[in-house]
């Protein structure tokens, strides 16, 4: 690997490649085209080669298989990634700002004395340096930063990049862990899946998502009526689920579900990046919020500056009127 190469850390989500990995490959291809280097993707797991096809945008696909890497635990993952970065010396390491990424990227930065940048949405090479644009403060502030040292470890926000369009050389190398792996103090036990029986919001065409603007649990009924009138289901941002007003299976966002409905009616949600992550792929987004500067309006096609408690009943009525219901 040369000092102009870009290393991507791949992730899987329940046996499929995570969307973020394809986005990182897109970002890496863009960066590599100006550094003149290769895109190398490393995938840790137990049978990583099964994903080789999906990773074909990379030039080199480094599959590292080990029983200890079957499920994420910090010790083995860090040991392997540190070793890979040390031996490959890439220009930049792209990591998703995900539950795994937020663990490993900063720790790799500490171990390697490498710069770490959070919230990356855009990147470019400029001479020996990297220029990165980051989003902080719940999407309200943007920062352009310059990173001189290599490797730069970039935590990339999901939804910031398109998957790569062109395939790379896609050479697959399968190898065992480059370092002996110990289980360590933090060990994975088991995955706990959400209770079945509730609606799967990821398969819905119409979602009505509610946030803090709903104010009281009592008002959820209004939202339910609206969802019914539209032939859809209720979803929610994290605060609503934290309160227990809806189960976790209804949560849209970074720590919830990623949804791509045809209609996403989002009510009283400010639209911080964590929420946007979960719905950026939606078709038609209509947002209602009393705060005209709410970031949700950046990802909506239509917006209304209004109290949702006023609009919901009027909207339900209007919809029922045309449906003759």
């Amino acid at each position, binding site marked *: 690997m040369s000092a102009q190469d870009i290393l991507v850390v791949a992730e899987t989500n329940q046996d499929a490649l995570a969307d973020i990995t394809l986005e990182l490959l897109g970002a890496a291809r863009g960066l590599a085209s100006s550094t003149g280097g290769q895109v190398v993707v490393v995938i840790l797991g137990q049978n990583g080669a099964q994903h080789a096809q999906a990773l074909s945008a990379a030039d080199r696909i480094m599959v590292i298989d080990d029983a200890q890497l079957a499920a994420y635990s910090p010790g083995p993952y860090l040991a392997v990634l540190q070793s890979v970065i040390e031996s490959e010396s890439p220009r930049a390491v792209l990591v998703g700002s995900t539950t795994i990424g937020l663990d490993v990227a900063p720790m790799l930065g500490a171990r390697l004395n490498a710069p770490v940048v959070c919230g990356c949405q855009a990147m470019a090479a400029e001479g020996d340096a990297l220029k990165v644009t980051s989003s902080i403060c719940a999407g309200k502030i943007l920062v352009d*930063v310059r990173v001189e040292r290599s490797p730069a470890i970039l935590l990339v926000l999901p939804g910031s990049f398109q998957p790569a369009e062109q395939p790379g050389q896609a050479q697959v190398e399968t190898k065992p862990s480059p370092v002996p792996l110990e289980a360590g103090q933090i060990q994975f036990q088991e995955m706990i899946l959400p209770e079945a029986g509730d609606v799967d919001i990821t398969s819905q065409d119409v979602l009505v998502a509610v946030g803090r603007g709903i104010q009281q649990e009592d008002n959820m009924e209004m939202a339910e009526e609206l969802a019914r009138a539209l032939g859809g289901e209720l979803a929610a941002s994290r605060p609503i689920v934290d309160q227990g007003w809806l189960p976790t299976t209804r949560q849209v966002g970074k720590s919830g579900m990623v949804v791509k409905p045809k209609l996403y009616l989002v009510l009283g949600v400010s639209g911080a990046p964590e929420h946007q992550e979960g719905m950026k792929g939606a078709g038609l987004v209509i947002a209602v919020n009393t705060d005209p500067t709410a970031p949700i309006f950046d990802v909506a096609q239509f917006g209304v500056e209004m109290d949702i408690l006023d609009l919901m009943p009027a909207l339900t009525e209007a919809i029922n009127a045309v449906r003759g219901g």
Partner: protein
Amino acid sequence: MKIAVVVRQVPDLIEPLEIAESEMELDLDGASFLVNETDDHAVEQAILLKEATGASVTVVALDFGDVDDTLYAAAAKGTDQIIKIPWEEETPPSPQAAAAMYAQVIKGIEADLVLVGTYAHDELEGVLAPLLGPALEMPYVGVIRGIQPGDDPSSIRAFKEFPGAVMAQMNVGLPAVLGILAAEQPPRYVPVSRIRAAMKSAEIEEQEVPLPAIEPALTVERMYLPEAGERAEMLEGSEEEVAQRIVQILQEKGLVK
């Protein structure tokens, strides 16, 4: 078990944030601060563990923002010790420097378990929570929603949140650092009278810690507000008028028949 909790103050986003004239940092002069949400959950989680196991809880904070209020509230909730690190600067230290400073205090406490919010919205050049791991030479795992006592006093069970409401149950051998996303229950309410009582009875210990000399790893070139550019087309009018317009849009797209 001895638990240490790190709490930070972050700019309150209730007001629009102002950017300094240099365009390289925030102008925090008129900003108001509040406790970082995930740190607040970390305090709650610590207290829940205390209630379950009798552990002691020490809260450590940097003297910034409304820190005294946060520390007294923590004391009122039942923490055993509250420590403040003096800090004169107008902006908080980098996560790397902060990690080193908190680590010094925490080593003095000899904590077995360190809890800290898994992220703060003003973090740019690093994330504090995982950095505490190496700074304390302890393993780290983050994005944790809930902790339960383990099968023996030297371990705990932590639930790491994955997409799709899936949780990974992790067995954590102490000592360790955990980045908290959410506690098992939302932060409890503490009556103001107890906070005021804590202001009289609880003592905030001050522990000076030198600021480590850490070279910044990146240079800020420009800080700015996102462009209002591609924002939504705003619909105006009364609720009835807007409702009609929305129905029209939905009909045009075949989403309502």
